[in-house]
C-alpha cells in the first residue's frame, strides 16, 4: 500500500482526539473521510502531514517510515478550508511558490505554472492579485500551488467548505479531473455526505476520534451510523 497509518493516537491534555487510527491507501486513489466538526479529522490530517506529532503509532509512505520526518521533508501537502493565498503574490507567483522553494530553474517554473493555469482554467488570471480573484478562482490557485510541487500525498481539509453550491460543484468536477491528470493520491475530509461519496475511491467515517474505512460504497451506504439511510428515508418520504 502507498500510505499506511498504523495505531496512531493523539491526545491534547486529557482529551484523546485520535484513537488508534488504522488505515491504508493505494497510490492514485482518494480516500474521502466523512465526519462531524470536532470528531478529530483535522488532527488526523495534521498528524499525517507532520504538523502535529502523534503520541504513538507509525506512518509509512511508499514503504518508508515518516513518523519522525519533518513536514518539509515529507512531500505531503496540507490544504486548508481557507485558500490561504499569499496576499503579496499574484496568482502566477502563488502557484510557483512551492517550485521556487525547491529552486527549480526559472524556465521550467514558467512552463509548469502556465500548464497548471491552463489545467485550472485560469488563463488570463496569472497577473491578478488574490483580492482580484473570486472564491472559486482563489481555491483553484490554492490547488495549483499544492499540485505543482508534485506531492506524494495531498491532504484536503474541507477544501470546498467556504464555497457556494454552484462553485462547489464545479470545483468537485475540476478536482476529479486534476486527480486523474496529475495522478494524485489524497485524503479528502468533508462533512458533506454527497461530497464524500462523489470524491472518494474509498470512503471512511470518523466519529469521536475513531476512523472506520469501508470496503466499498455499498457498505458505507448501508451503515446506519453514516447517516446515508436516514437521508434516503428523508428524501423517499417526500415522494
Amino acid at each position: 500500500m502507498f500510505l499506511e497509518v498504523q495505531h496512531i493516537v493523539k491526545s491534547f491534555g486529557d482529551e484523546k482526539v485520535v484513537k488508534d487510527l488504522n488505515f491504508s491507501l493505494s497510490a492514485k486513489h482518494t480516500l474521502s473521510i466523512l465526519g462531524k466538526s470536532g470528531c478529530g479529522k483535522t488532527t488526523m490530517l495534521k498528524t499525517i502531514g507532520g504538523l502535529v506529532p502523534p503520541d504513538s503509532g507509525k506512518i509509512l509512505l511508499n514503504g518508508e517510515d515518516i513518523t519522525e520526518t519533518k513536514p518539509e521533508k515529507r512531500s505531503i501537502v496540507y490544504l486548508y478550508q481557507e485558500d490561504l493565498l499569499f496576499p503579496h503574490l499574484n496568482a502566477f507567483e502563488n502557484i510557483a511558490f512551492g517550485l521556487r522553494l525547491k529552486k527549480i530553474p526559472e524556465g521550467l517554473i514558467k512552463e509548469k505554472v502556465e500548464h497548471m493555469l491552463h489545467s485550472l482554467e485560469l488563463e488570463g488570471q496569472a497577473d491578478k492579485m488574490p483580492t482580484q480573484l473570486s472564491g472559486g478562482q482563489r481555491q483553484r490557485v490554492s490547488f495549483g500551488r499544492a499540485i505543482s510541487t508534485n506531492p506524494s500525498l495531498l491532504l484536503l481539509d474541507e477544501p470546498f467548505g467556504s464555497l457556494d453550491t454552484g462553485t462547489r460543484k464545479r470545483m468537485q468536477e475540476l478536482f476529479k479531473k486534476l486527480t486523474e491528470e496529475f495522478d494524485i493520491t489524497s485524503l479528502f475530509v468533508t462533512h458533506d455526505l454527497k461530497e464524500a461519496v462523489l470524491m472518494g475511491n474509498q470512503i471512511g467515517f470518523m466519529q469521536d476520534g475513531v476512523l472506520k474505512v469501508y470496503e466499498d460504497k455499498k457498505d458505507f451506504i448501508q451503515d446506519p451510523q453514516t447517516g446515508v439511510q436516514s437521508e434516503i428515508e428523508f428524501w423517499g418520504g417526500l415522494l
Partner: protein
Amino acid sequence: MRLNWKPFVLSLVVLLILFPFVYLVFLSLASEWRFPDVWPSYIGFKNWVTVFNSEAGLLKSFFSSLVISLSVAVFSTTSGFLISKAVFYHPKKRVLTLLAYFPYILAPVVFAACLSFFFLKMGLFGNMTGVVVAQFIIAFPYALLFFSSFWNEKVKSYEDLVATLGGNKWQTYTKVLLPLAKGLILICFFQTFLISWFEYGLTSIIGIGKVQTLTIKVFLFIKEANYFYGALSCCLLIFPPVVLLYFNKRYVFKKFV
C-alpha cells in the same frame, strides 16, 4: 451670495499648526533679540555655522542621537518581531504579555534609578552602550506588544502551509512572514526610533552627562536660557523624524489606504 468660510478656516488651522515650526526655524537664525526690540538685531546662519564648526557640540550630539536611536530601533524591532512569535506560541503567553507592560509602570527616571546599580556593576554607566541598553529596555516591550497583534491562527496556518510545501524556517521568514509583516515592521521601526530619539529621563541618568544626545542638549540650552541654540537643536531634533515620517507616509501608509 453665501460666503464659503471653509478655505479660510482651513488656512487658519494650517497656519496655526505650521507657526511653531516656522518660528522655531526663525529663532534658530536669530541672535541678540532683546526687549523691546521687535526684530532681532541679527538674522543669519551664524548659529548654524557654529553647529558645523562643532563649537557647541551639537553636530556630535546629533550623530550620537542618530547612532543610539538607529541601534535601539533596529535591535528592538528585530527582537520584538522574533520574540513576539515565541510569546504567541508559548502556553503562558498571557503572563508573558503582562510582564511586557512592567517597564511602563514606573516613570522612566524612577526606572533608570532602579537599574543604575546593575548598569554600574556592568560598566554600562556613562557610555553610549549603556544608553542603548537602557533605551532598549523601554523600546523592546513596546515592539513586543506591537507585534503581538500580528501573530494569529491564520499566520500559523501560513507557516504550516509553507512547511508542507517544502519550505524551511528561513524560507518561511524571508518569503512569507517578513513580506506579510513589512508594513508593521516599518511602523515599529519608526515608533521605536522616536521613543529613543526623544528619550530624556533614562538617558540623563544612565548617560550621567557624558552621553549628550540631542534631547539632552536641548534641555541644557533651555536651562541656560539660550533660546537660539535651543531652537536650533530643536530643528535638528525634528529633522530625522520628519524624514522618517515622509518615508513612512510615502512607502508604508499609502499601501494601507
